[in-house]
């Protein structure tokens, strides 16, 4: 991809960035509830609450969380697709919180995205050559034609598709193929950051692995950074260097991906890990027991009506009194990042260490406690 015309990119002052490529600082996004013409407007949905993280050049930051936790909204805020309440977003040191129209083209050239649904994220009326080529025309001025097709062909090559796909329409392709077309489209403008929002979630595991390999290979070759969003922690851990865990709009834990996976410091992270089904009946039987320490049928609170304390409190097996009243602030954790949980400063004062053992002991004592109460009730 050395043969493409390079435009000067004033937004990125230098090719070698000293600090982070992307910095998100204290991001808040609220959605006004659809007000009626008359009457009181209901409270806004607080989709993102004080999220901060950064992505280093050539690195992948993974974002996980349940549906509705605000992952996509973070992505859409960075992509300028939703209005934000407060906070700042920086790209290579430049403020891109709200990109003015005259800089938009420049911004779009640096930040691209691969979106979730391989069926609706491609326009059904266009062929691959247009879907992938449009960005090239837009950013490099190469008009539709043989030269642009050749370039699109190289991009298809990079994502493991033959040139015969040039004149295919989206409905003529499988889900995995479409998703690779989406990746080729994002690559076409040679961005510095690609945001992949559930880019592999709709695919079969075998195909998902193909797409993930393509993403990693591209990172090795071009040094692009990724913000990789998915609900599957196993997949996110595999592709990410750093990891953030979201719950109800809060980033409850962030740090080194493998370290978090091996020794989570937030009860919710532990719950997510315990919920991943393992393809091994013996291992899974053990996981299932671990998972059941969390099992309660409580539903998460509504993002339009968040409790004053920790939002995970009603599902947390180790919640304390303070959790109901005070929202925990981020404190440093062993994996180099931080965690929002009172366990690290009150109660057992874990001080940023793993929460796994504590939950296990707590669950065991709770189990024997409930057995005792069962015995009591049967005795009556």
């Amino acid at each position, binding site marked *: 991809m050395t043969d493409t015309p390079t435009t000067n990119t004033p937004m990125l002052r230098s090719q070698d960035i000293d600090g982070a490529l992307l910095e998100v600082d204290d991001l808040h996004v609220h959605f006004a509830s659809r007000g009626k013409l008359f009457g009181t407007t209901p409270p806004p949905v607080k989709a993102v609450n004080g999220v901060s993280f950064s992505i280093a050049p050539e690195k992948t930051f993974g974002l996980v969380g*349940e549906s509705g936790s605000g992952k996509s909204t973070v992505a859409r805020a960075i992509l300028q697709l939703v209005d934000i309440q407060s906070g700042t977003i920086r790209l290579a040191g430049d403020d891109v919180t709200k990109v003015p129209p005259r800089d*938009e083209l420049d911004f779009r050239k640096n930040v691209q995205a691969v979106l979730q649904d391989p069926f609706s994220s491609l326009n059904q009326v266009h062929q691959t050559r247009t879907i992938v080529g449009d960005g090239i025309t837009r950013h490099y001025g190469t008009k539709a034609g043989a030269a642009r097709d050749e370039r699109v062909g190289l991009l298809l090559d*990079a994502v493991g598709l033959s040139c015969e796909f040039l004149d295919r329409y989206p409905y003529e392709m499988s889900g995995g193929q479409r998703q690779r077309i989406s990746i080729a489209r994002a690559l076409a403008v040679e961005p510095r950051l690609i945001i992949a929002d559930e880019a592999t979630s709709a695919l079969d595991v075998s195909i998902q692995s193909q797409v993930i390999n393509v993403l990693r290979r591209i990172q090795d070759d071009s040094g692009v950074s990724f913000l990789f969003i998915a609900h599957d922690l196993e997949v996110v851990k595999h592709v990410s260097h750093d990891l953030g865990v979201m719950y109800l709009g809060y980033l409850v834990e962030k740090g080194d991906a493998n370290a978090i996976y091996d020794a989570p410091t937030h009860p919710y992270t532990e719950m997510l890990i315990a919920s991943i089904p393992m393809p091994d*009946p013996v291992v*899974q039987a053990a996981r299932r027991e671990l998972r*059941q320490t969390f099992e309660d049928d409580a*539903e998460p609170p509504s993002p339009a009506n968040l409790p004053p304390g920790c939002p995970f409190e009603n599902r947390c097996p180790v919640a304390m009194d303070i959790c109901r009243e005070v929202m925990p602030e981020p404190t440093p954790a062993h994996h180099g990042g931080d965690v929002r949980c009172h366990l690290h400063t009150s109660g057992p004062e874990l001080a940023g260490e793993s929460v796994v053992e504590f939950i296990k002991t707590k669950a065991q004592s709770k189990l024997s406690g409930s057995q005792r109460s069962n015995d009591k009730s049967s005795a009556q």
Partner: protein
Amino acid sequence: MSESELEPTIEETPPPKADSPRQRFWKRMVRNPLALFSMVWFVILIVSWVWPELLATHDPFKQDVTLQRLFEGPSGDHWLGTDGLGRDHYSRVVFGAGFAFRSIFIAMTIAIGIGVPIGLFSGWRGGRIDRAIMWVNDVLFSLPIILLAMAVIIILTPSLTNAMIGVGIAMATRFVRLTRGVTLAEKEELYVDAARITGISVPRILARYIAPNLLPSLIVQAAIISGAIILIGATLSFLGIGASLDDPDWGVMLNRARPDFRREGIWQIMPSGGALVLTVLAFNLLGDAIRDAIGRDASSNALTITKRVSVAAASTSHAEGDDLVISVRDMDVEFPSAKGPVSEILNGVSFEVRAGETLGVVGESGSGKSMTMLSALGLTPAPGRMTRGSVNFLGEDVTNLTEKAWQSIRGKEVGVIFQEPIAVLNPAMKVGAQIMEPLRIHMGMSKAEARTRAVELLTEVRVPDPARRLDQYPHEFSGGMAQRVGIAMALACEPKLLIADEPSTALDVTVQGQILDLLAEIQTRRNMAIILITHDLGVIAEAADRVLVMYGGQVMETGSVEDVFFRPKHPYTKALLDTMPQNHSGDGELAVIAGIVPQPTAWPTGCRFAPRCVHATDSCTSTMPPLLTVNTDVVRCLRHGEEGFDLAQPASGTEVLS
């Protein structure tokens, strides 16, 4: 980045191109007799419009006031007779087509030229501006069209052109509505986000991305409105405020025939009236036909069940035992296709499930998992049909059962839960009523009994506060809670067999665990058989007792859950296990299964997995492997049992691929 480094090991080439929607559209149009009629009629009209002299036999203005030439009936010279001034009806009708099309052209240009941009703008902007525009539009919309046309004529001068300007403005409101609706919907589509991310400007997004998606409905609407425009034009001319009184306009002709028709008989209004009626009809038929031809096949969405034909018996016998719930032997299912040969969706599928047992069915999408279960229960979607095999359900042969007999069995003995719980619930109906309905129909319960039972069921699936939840609507349920309702509904009639088709795929992992636990708990309590369809081997590992691995519409292997995970017999099973990120250690590339699942219209010859199998040899690509029985299980692989063949050593057969 250099290209050579990026080259992946296997590059995919697409399957042969199918019919494009355009080809499909025209095929359907020609096959529809009404559409054909209207298209032929339009060809005639268009020729009359661009080259009337070709069709006309007389000068339409030439009068012939000799007495015997007035009000003539049809004759060899005047095919459709003459009018009160001795002019040739037929030729005037031919020339009239030009007036009709000119009216349509003027009014449509204005209607689309004004309506579509306003609709695009309004829909894209949304919010207050949109509301204001739509308010004005609705006011204009509610005014009678003729009134607007008259207003323009009064302001300007009476002429057909000016009248059509008024009609165009009135019709623009229809296009504003249509365009805005489509824009509002398309705006939310991911591909529009994708275009914005690419940096495409808004006008360009509207023109290149949204407008093409608008086109089909626009054409349909335009066809129907064209019919209306002709009628309105004719009405205005008939009233004397449209075309000039000498012109061969159909409305004028009607007007001129009016005083004569009582004296001279009905014939006088037939030529112009007939042309008018036929044209309006043709426009409406064309609109309908286009809509039908664009629309999806109804049969592919609705679950219409094929009429039963007698099915060739299976060659192997059923398993035995009192606890056998369902047993399927050697089932083939075929779908006829419009062009070419029938495609065989399922081939030689056999399995059985016993009471209290969970059979996990696993395979990539398109491998035939759902079709297997539908067909086993007599639900093969039309036009497919089961052509071979036999099915035993609760000890009875149900292979050739009528649909009616099946219905009563399915209603009582089989429960089904689906991937999208919300989609199964009717959004307009309270959840309680939906649970109670089958109880009242199949179990004959009274309303009060059904309600008590519904509360019990919701309690059984651990929905908190069940009595209150019964009176809520589906949108008040989260995905996990909705799936619990789905399970409660499936359990309502105490089924012996529960089929769960990807019951947890659409749910969060944390909720997925709860649902699997719930199913296990209910199974123990009721000693129910469960068939669990999923593409997630982790779910299989947790919940299944026995496993059926499917690929390409065939059973690849069966086995106990331990066998399948620790001692897989088939290369496909092994490959599936290897692709799980959980089974991947280290930082290198994830294992993949190269290539894609084949289409039923193009099964590979020989082993269907051969093009993707790392163990494939030459004979694999020519010989279809038979289903081998191994103890109580089966496997479909030519190399099974071959001396020294080891699934853990992929190197042994890779020469074919490289």
